[in-house]
């Protein structure tokens, strides 16, 4: 990732030049001041309008999400059997085809909303003696789904900032989940200590995998993209192999599954046992703060951003890109390992061959959508978490497959990564002074 000096977090565009001023003029009451204030107001409005018309990065992101949701809706509408049936009667009942298409897509998205944010039925039920916790279940599910995405997303984003492309979150995730899980079910420790040790184990597991990549890049120049892709598969087969061994496998079960982690090693629930939200979410938020602090307030962070912007300049300034690569990959691996720990200790409780799910790949899209800034990653992960949580409810209510969430997520990132495309379809003026949100392409060799 070649980054501009501002980094991909570049918020250059989002602040319009004319900052809104407090209406001190208006309060003084003279006509002159009031006219000035009006002028200022107009200026603000104009500059805001300009930001929209020119397509600032925030606007582009918003439009990218809207476009992806629209395409997803079309996909839902035009693959639904009822709608296809209605199309076959297009000429006898032309209105019905369109209204059916709208109904199907609308009901899918409203079910998704109910599964991700709030379901009105649970609210009204709560007034009639239902459970209050039930109201918050969708939000809890969103947070649970977002937790590993935040952590793994940070692992990818931090590497981006150092000019590296970490596709290996999957492998690092497995490394973390493996060690955290093993500590969870094979070791016996007192209450709080056990979960802390298991979480640390997860960080170490991920760091080993990530550090290997960084070390190989620093020593031999092996491109991290290739090494991480390959390492993902190595780790996937490694966990499959380990789950075949007596050390890892739950006795007496036909499937390759590990024993469940001890209760002492599980992450505590935050809001009662009925909601799945657990301390992992807080850990993830804390990690985001830590990464933000590391990036902006520490020497390591400064070196990291410098190396990311230009390794030559960094070397000339007396920094060692090699050492930075290793450090960054150790930290990134640790974050992805933490994601693995959060899943095994927070929601899944037993190692399976599929424990890694799609977190590692989704982490890349989360990091891109979040423009590689910690805050952006948290927001992006929450959006993806809500899509994941909502799509489960959607499938239960409307039988529309959950995979639609994957399609929408992929499209969002595709469009976010291509601001000129979004500007073209919405006829936004190109921004003066080049693209700031766009991540410039580079090859294998750099």
């Amino acid at each position: 990732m070649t980054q501009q000096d501002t980094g991909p977090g570049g918020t250059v565009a989002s602040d319009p030049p004319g900052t809104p001023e407090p209406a001190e003029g208006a309060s003084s009451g003279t006509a002159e001041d009031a006219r000035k204030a009006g002028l200022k107001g107009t200026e603000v409005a104009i500059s805001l309008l300009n930001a929209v018309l020119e397509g600032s990065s925030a606007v582009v992101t918003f439009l990218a999400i809207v476009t992806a949701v629209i395409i997803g809706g079309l996909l839902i509408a035009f693959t639904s059997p009822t709608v296809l049936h209605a199309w076959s009667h297009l000429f006898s009942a032309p209105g019905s085809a369109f209204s059916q298409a709208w109904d199907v897509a609308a009901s899918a998205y409203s079910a998704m909303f109910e599964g991700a944010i709030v379901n009105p039925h649970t609210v009204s039920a709560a007034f009639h003696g239902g459970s209050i916790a039930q109201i918050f279940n969708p939000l809890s599910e969103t947070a649970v789904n977002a937790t590993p995405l935040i952590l793994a997303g940070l692992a990818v984003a931090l590497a981006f900032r150092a000019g590296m492309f970490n596709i290996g979150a999957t492998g690092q995730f497995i490394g973390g989940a493996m060690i955290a899980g093993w500590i969870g079910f094979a070791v016996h420790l007192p209450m709080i200590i056990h979960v802390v040790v298991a979480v640390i184990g997860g960080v170490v597991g991920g760091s080993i995998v990530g550090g290997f990549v960084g070390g190989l890049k620093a020593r031999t120049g092996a491109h991290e993209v290739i090494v991480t892709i390959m390492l993902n598969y190595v780790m996937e087969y490694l966990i499959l192999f380990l789950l075949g061994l007596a050390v890892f496998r739950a006795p007496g079960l036909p499937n390759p599954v590990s024993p469940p982690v001890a209760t002492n090693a599980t992450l505590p629930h935050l809001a009662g046992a009925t909601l799945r939200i657990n301390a992992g979410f807080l850990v993830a938020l804390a990690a985001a703060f830590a990464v933000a602090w590391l990036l902006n307030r520490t020497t390591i962070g400064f070196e990291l951003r410098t190396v990311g912007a230009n390794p030559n300049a960094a070397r000339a300034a007396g920094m060692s890109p090699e050492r930075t690569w290793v450090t960054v990959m150790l930290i990134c691996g640790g974050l992805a390992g933490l994601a693995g720990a959060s899943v095994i200790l927070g929601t899944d409780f037993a190692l399976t061959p599929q424990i890694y799910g799609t977190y590692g790949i989704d982490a890349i899209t989360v990091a891109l959508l979040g423009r590689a800034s910690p805050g952006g990653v948290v927001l992006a992960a929450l959006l993806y978490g809500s899509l994941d949580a909502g799509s489960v409810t959607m499938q239960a209510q409307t039988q529309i497959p959950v995979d639609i969430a994957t399609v929408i997520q992929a499209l969002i990132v595709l469009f976010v990564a291509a601001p000129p495309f979004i500007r073209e379809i919405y006829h936004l003026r190109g921004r003066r002074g080049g693209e700031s949100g766009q991540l410039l392409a580079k090859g294998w060799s750099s």
Partner: protein
Amino acid sequence: MTAITAVGPKRVTIDRQRAIAGIFVMLGVVDFFVFGLFASNGDAVFTFTLTGAAVSVPNLSLPAGPVSEGIGALTVILGLLYAGVRLSKIPQRLVGVAVVLGFVVSFLCWSDAGRIPLPFVSLMQSTMLAAIPLVLGALSGCLCERSGVINIAIEGQLLLGAFAGAVIASSFGSLWLGLFSGSIAGGLLAILLAVFAIRYMVDQIILGVVLNVFASGLTGYLYDQALVPYQNRLNSPNTFVPIKVPVLGDIPIIGPILFDSTIFLYITYAAVALVHIGLFKTRWGLRVRAVGEHPTAADTVGIKVLFTRYRNVVLGGLVAGIGGASLTIGSVGSFGKDISSGQGYIALAAMIFGRWTPLGATGAALLFGFSVACANVLGTIGAPIPSDFLLMLPYVATIIAVAGFVGRSRAPKADGQPYIKS
């Protein structure tokens, strides 16, 4: 960009020949000590005749331990000689091939010692079958990357090809139409890749990953939404039947492996030959490579850089789409979710391992296909190695290759860099 390429880490320069010699010696030591001394008692028996073959070839029975020890000792000697003697290119490669073959033979002896006979011909047949999508995917990679566009979307191209192949062949009842549509589907994803990479200059690594996720989500969605309820109509294609080449197909051992397979294998032969000759023996290929190495220079002499890239990316997609179709209508028939299961990434690995050349990639794909076939076949005879390690092999080999232990694998110089006409 030139400034950035100059930054590589300060690399410890190892004499390449010595490094390779060291690896030869290591392989020889493994042959001797692991496969030789730790072989179970009893012979390794290889059968070479398929049931119903016209000519019967006698079984080969080898004493596993001594054979592996012998091969190991020879390999070590070869390795030591290799370190000392300067060889020209061709003998160098021959030695390499001999060492790898020796390793494979002693590995097979060790796996089969004292167990039921190893059906060599069906092992090789499943190697070829496994290699088809890998070779075609890797060729897609070569075509794209030689023109300067990174293609990580091979996985997605295979997946869409497999999907379209199965669905179209099933609903229209025509396998050829299925093959054609599989190719087109791969080409469509390639168009997306090309447009976003070339026109909108999206980072090509990101783009590839995202397109793979997109393809996986799209086919997964359509599978649940349409193929599951209408399994009979949309997802029950026939499969191509093997075609035996008249004379060549009757040759013992080689015939059934190389000349008695579905149309996909023959398409693969043709594709390898065409891409190799096209890229390295024609003016067309020279231009493609010029665009991939130095687009500005190519542009100066009047080669249309962007057009070349569009054409090659789409061409690659069409080739990979055929490979995808082979996953469904070439072998199992119906489509299943994520049926390509990472083979696109193995194809990428094969391309890198083969140093961005069609022939090298084909060799690597065959090796990787062999390790997949071994994982399947050796599991059934109860070999003493976990299949997971065999399946890991392609990935580990690629990591070793890019780490430069056996000479660095270098990408075309402008690979992945968008071209902006100045």
